[in-house]
């Protein structure tokens, strides 16, 4: 009787685990099958080299580059904002802040990640853009800069929180060795702690990049939804995710080529984040036990 019960529980648990794996496989399958019919009509070469993305226009172009450029541009801006801020916060919390302060501030910071992204989107459009236009008059109402900055704010806690964990796990003995040599706290942080925590910090950056690449709402609202191959942050652009939303909300016919572009864009996105996640996994594994 008891044995039977155990068996049932075990099976249920296994099924739960299987659900997440099956979902991933299902998503991959849909992506691959739909995009394979896309690639039977559009050559991979055009997809990767054409500099225009106009599947919904009369004259159709299917170059993914403008969307990738848009994604990279907003992501780059976000990281430029989030990395120095997040790392400074991590170092401050770890090295300088009193324990009580750290206990209060760390969860508060993580709230940043819990704000609905639609709120961030309107914050970018209605607050940040008008503010920036005061200093940069020829900036368009929709642009890459403002959602990029706001996205950067959103991913600060990913970097600060994970980097802080990484700094925290650097052995106390190394810290003391550095202090004992007459190093200041700042020197200790940058010459000993950050190098020793490099793997954890790198992982946090990659996760933040993944998050920024996959972010949809902020860019959909504030970046303009105009695919354009440019690195100019002041003009409207479109990211991969935004394009998927745009087409999904429109009235394209299911099964049409326009419809299949969603999956082609989707697979490009999937490939980007998949590669990044694997790099972070690799770094984590490779450097994990180095200093223990």
């Amino acid at each position, binding site marked *: 009787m008891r044995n039977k019960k155990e068996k049932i529980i075990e099976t249920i648990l296994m099924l739960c685990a299987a659900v997440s794996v099956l979902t991933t496989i299902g998503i991959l399958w849909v992506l691959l099958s739909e995009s394979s019919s896309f690639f039977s009509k559009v050559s991979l070469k055009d997809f990767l080299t054409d500099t225009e993305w106009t599947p919904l226009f009369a004259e159709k172009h299917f170059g993914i580059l403008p969307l990738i450029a848009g994604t990279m541009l907003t992501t780059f801006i976000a990281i430029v904002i989030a990395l120095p801020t997040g790392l400074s916060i991590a170092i401050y919390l770890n090295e300088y802040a*009193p*324990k009580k302060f750290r206990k209060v501030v760390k969860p508060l910071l993580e709230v940043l990640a819990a704000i609905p992204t639609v709120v961030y989107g309107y914050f970018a459009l209605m607050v940040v853009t008008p503010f920036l236009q005061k200093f940069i008059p020829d900036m368009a109402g929709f642009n890459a800069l403002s959602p990029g900055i706001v996205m950067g704010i959103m991913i600060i806690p990913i970097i600060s929180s994970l980097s802080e964990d990484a700094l925290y796990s650097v*052995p106390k*003995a*190394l810290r*003391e*060795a*550095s*202090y*004992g*040599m*007459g*190093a*200041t706290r700042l*020197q200790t942080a940058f*010459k*000993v702690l950050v*190098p*020793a925590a490099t793997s954890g910090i790198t992982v946090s950056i990659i996760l933040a990049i993944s998050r920024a690449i996959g972010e949809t709402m902020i860019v959909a609202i504030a970046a303009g939804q105009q695919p354009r191959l440019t690195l100019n942050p002041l003009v409207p652009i479109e990211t991969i995710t935004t394009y998927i939303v745009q087409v999904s909300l429109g009235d394209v016919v299911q099964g049409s080529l326009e419809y299949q572009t969603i999956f082609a864009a989707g697979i490009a996105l999937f490939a980007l984040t998949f590669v990044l996640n694997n790099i972070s996994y690799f770094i984590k594994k490779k450097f994990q036990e*180095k*200093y223990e």
Partner: protein
Amino acid sequence: MAKLDAEKVNVYYGDHHIIKDVNLSIQENTVTAFIGPSGCGKSTFLRLLNRMNDYIENFKKTGDILIDGGDIYDKKVRVEDLRKRVGMVFQKPNPFPKSIYENVVYGLRIQGIKDKSKLDAVVENSLKKVALWGEVKDKLQQSALALSGGQQQRLCIARTLAVEPTIILMDEPASALDPISSAKIEDLISELKENFTIIIVTHNMQQASRVSDKTAFFYLGELVEFGDTDQIFTKPVKELTQNYITGRFG
């Protein structure tokens, strides 16, 4: 004049009274051993001397500690400058995850010294002083973590010597090492005495009697007895000391 003077030193962590009214005077170019059971305050007292306790929350100290006649807890003293004068070697070897070379020059780099020939000279000198030069001179750029425990500890001592302190504090420097490595560290201590004032915390009675000139016995935060090592180990004045060194408790 004494190299180091402690006058009526008390230490509190919050409500805990860790060090009680300690007076102690240490002469230049001597080796002083701090002995006593775990939790007796000897490590805490050692760490007072280069202000390693400063970052501990709720830490409070009263009384004065003078080195070369100057109060090291004076507001005008930069704790970083103090630690260049008072070096420290820790219980577990703690080289940085950097090359052997970078470990030795760390203290000079943070002082902003960039002159390559000077750094090279310091590396060779410091490693020779700890008898490590011959073993590592061909692999200075390799990671310090690849060295054995005993070699790592000697590297840590070399790293401390590189900034030319006058006092070296050692917190059970050989307790994590095998007997042979441990013996090498002891030999080293006797040699370093020529040029440095050394204070060593140890659990090992034999070690204390072998390497030190003076011995201080701590118990429950008090300095029970302080005197010549020979006297402490052969005819201690206090019964408590007698009981401890003969292994009746501890």
